[in-house]
């Protein structure tokens, strides 16, 4: 053991912890990210010292290639596409851990078979399993988010049975590996099963459940790094891996709670598909339409406004024009805030990033629990591209598939205006009772175009 390197790893671990602590405060968060990056540089530099000079060229090239790709992607990616990027990078992390585990297996098999003891083999198999599941699962999540494959849940008969059989096969093949660690064939079988399991566990999950899925895969990528740490007896891998694992699990819990569903229910999948038929039976909601001019007048006469943004706002790229709307309202001394539901968007906190990019101060973005009391004394609520998160059926209708889900009390406001492309349903496939409420008005059309018109009307009034 080289004591200098061990100390460097310890320093790196502490820096990761401090970095995450700083993420707890919005004003310090950027500093925290830098501290964590310094920790990473220290860990990498310390490891480089242990290497033989012979491989340095190849290693240098690999690092250069990786850095160039990472840098290019990170600078180019649009903020609306962050969920896709995180999904893709989770997958890379999983695949990297998987490759390290395999590399270590081959190395030990060919040089020192005796070192492949039970503890070591268990770590290798866990790392292969978690790494491969993270990789293929993340790729499917990426393709779904990016619209390259349908966001609809893909289910077939016997799906859960197949997963169970694969898991049993995995355990059986693992036993064979333990009996004869030199047999590569069993390892190959394990790899194939693990890759398949990743695909099969994510395809039945609908596009709108992706916030849960990427949080969970985020956690897996950490656990894969952790398992790799056990293979190499390396503490910095274990510390960093468990931090990420914990982070992903907490976010997964928050997302599930915000949808009032258990993790098992999300993972079994098929949501939205089964309930779509149930929703169609209800009576059609009769709605009242509103035009651009009247909308502008309602904003003009309000003294308090709450905007409820949803993924539809991101799709329409309406966040910048909403900032202009905010400026018009603030000129009139209207109290203008945003109510952010935890599952709005395609990943945890996605709305906040999009609104921050549109240059909206973060103290205007209020969490559900902190703003829900205020709706009842608000003049005007403006719902942009959100649906299920404001559906009162979640409170009142035990038959509704979203019953029990915590929602924003938009319906309690004096007037609600809903900006919507057309009369489609939310992802849960249910009619939104709110649209038929006497205080609710529908502003149909593309959010960006209609809000632009509202803003220019308001400018003319001033």
């Amino acid at each position, binding site marked *: 053991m080289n004591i200098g390197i061990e100390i460097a790893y310890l320093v790196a671990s502490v820096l990761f912890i401090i970095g995450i602590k700083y993420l707890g405060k919005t004003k310090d968060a950027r500093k925290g990210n830098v501290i964590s990056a310094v920790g990473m540089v220290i*860990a990498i530099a310390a490891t480089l010292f242990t290497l033989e000079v012979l491989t340095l060229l190849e290693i240098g090239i690999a690092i250069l290639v990786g850095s160039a790709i990472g840098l290019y992607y990170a600078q180019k990616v649009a903020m609306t596409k962050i969920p896709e990027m995180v999904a893709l990078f989770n997958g890379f992390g999983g695949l990297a851990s998987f490759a390290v585990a395999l590399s270590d297996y081959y190395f030990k098999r060919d040089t020192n078979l005796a070192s492949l003891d039970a503890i070591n083999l268990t770590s290798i198999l866990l790392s292969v399993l978690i790494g491969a599941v993270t990789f293929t699962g993340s790729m499917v999540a990426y393709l779904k988010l990016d619209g390259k494959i349908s966001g609809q849940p893909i289910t077939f008969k016997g799906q859960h049975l197949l997963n169970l059989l694969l898991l049993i096969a995995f355990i059986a093949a693992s036993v064979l590996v333990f009996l004869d660690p030199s047999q590569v064939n069993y390892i190959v079988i394990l790899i194939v099963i693990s890759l398949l399991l990743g695909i099969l566990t994510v395809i039945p999950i609908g596009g709108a459940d992706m916030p849960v899925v990427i949080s969970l895969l985020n956690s897996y990528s950490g656990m894969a790094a952790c398992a790799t740490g056990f293979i190499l007896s390396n503490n910095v891998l274990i510390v960093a891996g468990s931090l990420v694992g914990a982070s992903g699990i907490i976010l997964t819990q928050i997302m599930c709670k915000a949808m009032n569903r258990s993790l098992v229910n999300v993972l079994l999948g098929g949501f939205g598909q089964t309930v779509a038929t149930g929703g169609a039976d209800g009576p059609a909601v009769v709605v009242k339409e509103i035009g651009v001019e009247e909308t502008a007048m309602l904003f003009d006469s309000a003294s308090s406004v709450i905007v409820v943004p949803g993924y539809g706002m991101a799709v329409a790229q309406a966040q910048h024009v909403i900032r202009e709307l905010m400026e018009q309202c603030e000129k009139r001394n209207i109290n203008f805030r945003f109510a952010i539901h935890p599952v709005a968007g395609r990943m*945890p906190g996605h709305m906040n990033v999009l609104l921050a990019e549109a240059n909206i101060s973060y103290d205007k973005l209020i969490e559900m629990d902190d703003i829900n009391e205020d709706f009842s004394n608000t003049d005007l609520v403006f719902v942009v591209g959100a649906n299920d998160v404001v559906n009162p059926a979640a409170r009142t209708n035990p038959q509704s598939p979203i019953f029990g889900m915590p929602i924003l009390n938009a319906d309690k406001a004096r007037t609600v205006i809903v900006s919507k492309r057309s009369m489609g349903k939310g992802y849960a496939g249910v009619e939104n009772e709110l649209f038929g409420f006497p205080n609710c008005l529908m502003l149909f059309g593309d959010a960006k175009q209609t809000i632009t018109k509202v803003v220019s009307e308001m400018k003319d009034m001033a």
Partner: protein
Amino acid sequence: MSLSALIVLIYVLVLASYLGFELISKVPPTLHTPLMSGSNAISGITIVGALIASNELGYTTLSKWLGLVALVLATINVVGGYVVTDRMLKMFKKK
């Protein structure tokens, strides 16, 4: 690996996980997206394992190549993760 060495590693795992739960539950929802991309970068710590694996030269070429593939992927994760997180956090302003 000896059992006592394993126990030490499990200690580290349990304590770090506990610390992770404590710290991350204090991160405000506003920052959940940067938290995910930032922790994504941290999970790129596999880069350390990849470096060690890439170094296994002269024994088996397969180990080395697997190590180098892991190295490229982990580097993408680390560099891309930190840069995009910084890009996002830079935008969070209070006026």
